[in-house]
């Protein structure tokens, strides 16, 4: 494998890990993320890929080869359709988060991007696996090579680009709670960001303001100067949603709605193995909200059941090879 790009929010020991932020401009990670250790033990070279601050703005980065990219809100899907690449955002718990600096730990995942499905599979195979240093890591053996026939494939009406999937027996699916996905995602990711980004305070490491005469100043000015507008907006929104007066109406409601979506998706997936969705608002939020794996190929994304990445890979191969096999 050639050199793999690694997004700059993944810790590489002895190297700057900036998350695209002034806050961590000079921060040198004192340890390796678990996935970096795995790359090293497989003799794979890597180099950092830059990003917007904590990935909170749409990244406009050029990627034209294998890369490990974190996905909060369809980041991988968007990069893939823009650069004609294939990408996989895995099931929550398949890839260790230890050493990955996340603003929203219940939503953000580490995924892979490559030129072909095979590239993605190979890279995912290396970085996946149980890690006891990550409490959410799944102690489950997942075989990416597993072949499955007779996959039941669902599709939503909003998928306009159907040419590569015409030959499959498609089941039309409707997601009645779809329209809440983006808003729920926004509330929960903002709430988590307001908490997870609070540790950047100029006290122990990272950027510290030069304008202070007391402790409050250190906090206020460091965070005022060290963060960009988008990030500040997100944290303020999150603080608002968690405030005692708003919590019930926003944060609690959002988590309840999240459960509602999970339940509905579980029901939908009783009838199908894979669901084809477009790369559009609300759809790009589904996989992260439910922890399901998703694979983006061509202009669409296919979502699967938890830990059934192998089925996504099977179908994607069919699509890539223009397979004549009826599914």
């Amino acid at each position, binding site marked *: 494998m050639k050199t793999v790009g690694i997004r700059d*929010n*993944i*810790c590489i020991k002895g190297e700057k*890990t900036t*998350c695209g932020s002034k806050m*961590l401009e000079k*921060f040198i*990670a*004192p*340890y390796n*993320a678990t996935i970096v250790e795995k790359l090293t033990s497989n003799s794979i070279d890597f180099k950092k890929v830059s990003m917007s601050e904590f990935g909170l703005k749409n990244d406009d980065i050029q990627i034209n080869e294998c890369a490990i990219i974190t996905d909060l809100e369809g980041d991988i899907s968007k990069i893939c359709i823009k650069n004609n690449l294939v990408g996989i955002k895995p099931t929550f718990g398949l890839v260790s*988060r*230890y*050493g*990955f*600096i996340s603003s*929203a*730990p*219940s939503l953000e995942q580490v995924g892979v991007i490559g030129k072909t499905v095979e590239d993605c599979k190979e890279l995912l195979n290396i970085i996946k696996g149980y890690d*006891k*240093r*990550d*409490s*959410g890591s799944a102690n489950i053996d997942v075989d990416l090579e597993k072949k499955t026939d007779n996959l039941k494939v669902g599709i939503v009406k909003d998928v306009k680009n159907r040419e590569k999937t015409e030959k499959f027996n498609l089941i039309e699916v409707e997601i009645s709670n779809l329209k809440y996905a983006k808003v729920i995602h926004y509330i929960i990711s903002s*709430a*988590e960001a*307001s*908490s997870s980004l*609070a*540790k950047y*305070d100029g*006290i*122990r*490491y990272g950027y510290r303001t030069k304008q202070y005469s007391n*402790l409050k100043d250190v*906090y206020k000015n460091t965070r005022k100067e060290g963060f960009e507008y988008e990030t500040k907006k997100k944290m303020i929104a999150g*603080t608002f949603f*968690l*405030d*005692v007066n708003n*919590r019930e109406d926003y*944060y609690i409601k959002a988590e309840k709605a999240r459960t509602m979506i999970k339940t509905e998706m579980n029901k939908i997936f009783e009838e199908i193995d894979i669901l084809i969705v477009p790369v559009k608002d609300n759809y790009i939020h589904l996989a992260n909200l439910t922890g399901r794996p998703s694979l983006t190929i061509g202009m669409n994304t296919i979502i699967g059941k938890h830990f059934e990445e192998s089925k996504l890979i099977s179908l994607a191969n069919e699509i890539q090879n223009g397979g004549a096999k009826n599914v």
Partner: protein
Amino acid sequence: MYNDYEMVIGLETHVELGTKTKIFCGCSTEFGGEPNSHCCPVCLAIPGAMPVLNEKVVEYAVRAGLATNCQITKFGWQDRKNYFYPDMPPAYQVSQTEEFICKNGYVEIETDDGTKNIRIHEIHIEADAGKLIHDNLEECSLVDLNRAGVPLIEIVSEPDMRSAKEVEDYLRNLKGILEYTGVSDCKMQEGSMRADINISVRKKGDTKLGSKIEMKNMNSFKFIIKAINYEAQRQIDILEDGEKVISETVKWDDQKQKTISMREKDSAAYRPFPDPELMPIVLDDEYVESIRKTLPELPKARQKRYLSEYGLPIYDTKFITNSKYLCSIFEEATNVSGNPKMVSNFIMSDISRILKEKEIEESNIPFSGENIGKLIILINKGTISTSIAKKVLIDMFETAKSPEEIIKEKGLVQISDEGIIKEVVSKILSQNEQSVLDYKAGKDKALGFLVGQAMKEMKGKANPVILNKLFIENLKK
């Protein structure tokens, strides 16, 4: 004025668990050590490092809950309490604000009206913060994060206590129970057990709660009693003046003998929500029962055993079984001396008095039960008198020596030689003719005086029985 009102008191007791490592990482929890030497990316909140819950912490919390009659929560989780302070690296404290690991327990105390249950609302687990040391010379604060991430349980009582005595009894009993379970060494002076006391007052008969004052981080029984009584009176005085009590946090200033208002930390709400990096704590009945089996004999059961095995009065058994350290002293001393009642008396009177005076914790008693046993044997053999024994005990508190060594070194062996004593008796009699006449005239007190003088002459070492006998014999003449 005071009698119209009642105090209403609840406690939040923080107890450091005696696990080897911290709550979310493998760093040592050992007390002391170079500042910031027991730290790692996790407890320093270095970006990307993630917490993993220490299983022992859950086990210890369940032990504490079972020992205090709590229900154990089968599906719980941990929440983040968000606030900025340099002693809290992640800028949030991981605690539990909803599904606490233990709920609805109680601790028994003895009141004048019989046994009373002080109800426990919850026990929850949380991470401790680091320490700030304020350097007055450099005008800065030094941050030591060794303690950041040390596991705590917080035991929250209902506001069931009505006096400083009830608070003291509750806290002593709670401490005793936790020491039995082995989950903490409960050393108040070292800070492994500290109490926040919430106190308000109201007219007797009122059911509504008054504005409460919070007294934080109290770790001395002496101060707790003083502070509670001071605060209650202060609040009553305010209400009697027609004013309202303002809810605030205070601390006890022992120099000024009063409570002082503390500058509040930013008391904005903590915006708690479930920690997304941690998974739910799921426990089943099998797990809980397996822990229940490992609990040692708890105070109540031990009291029953002491009653039957040693034939001690109920008061004695309750006193001793309150602390596992007193129990081990008692049992060892009884083994050696064969006299449980004498041992018990020693523990309840002289030993306890000295512990209270010098503010020594039971876990820090510097001598063994064996040595107390030996001391009692020496009394029973007549080698020393009871009053000399009390002096030896004080020495035992201060040195690590055995009673035999102390007696030898200080020459405290009781003199029972009748010849020697007779000489002193004669001398005292000849020097105090008036007392002799008084005694013969029927004043028994005179004998006591003469005996006292002789004892003084013999530096307290005379065998009192023989001394008395010889005086009486001589006076009869």
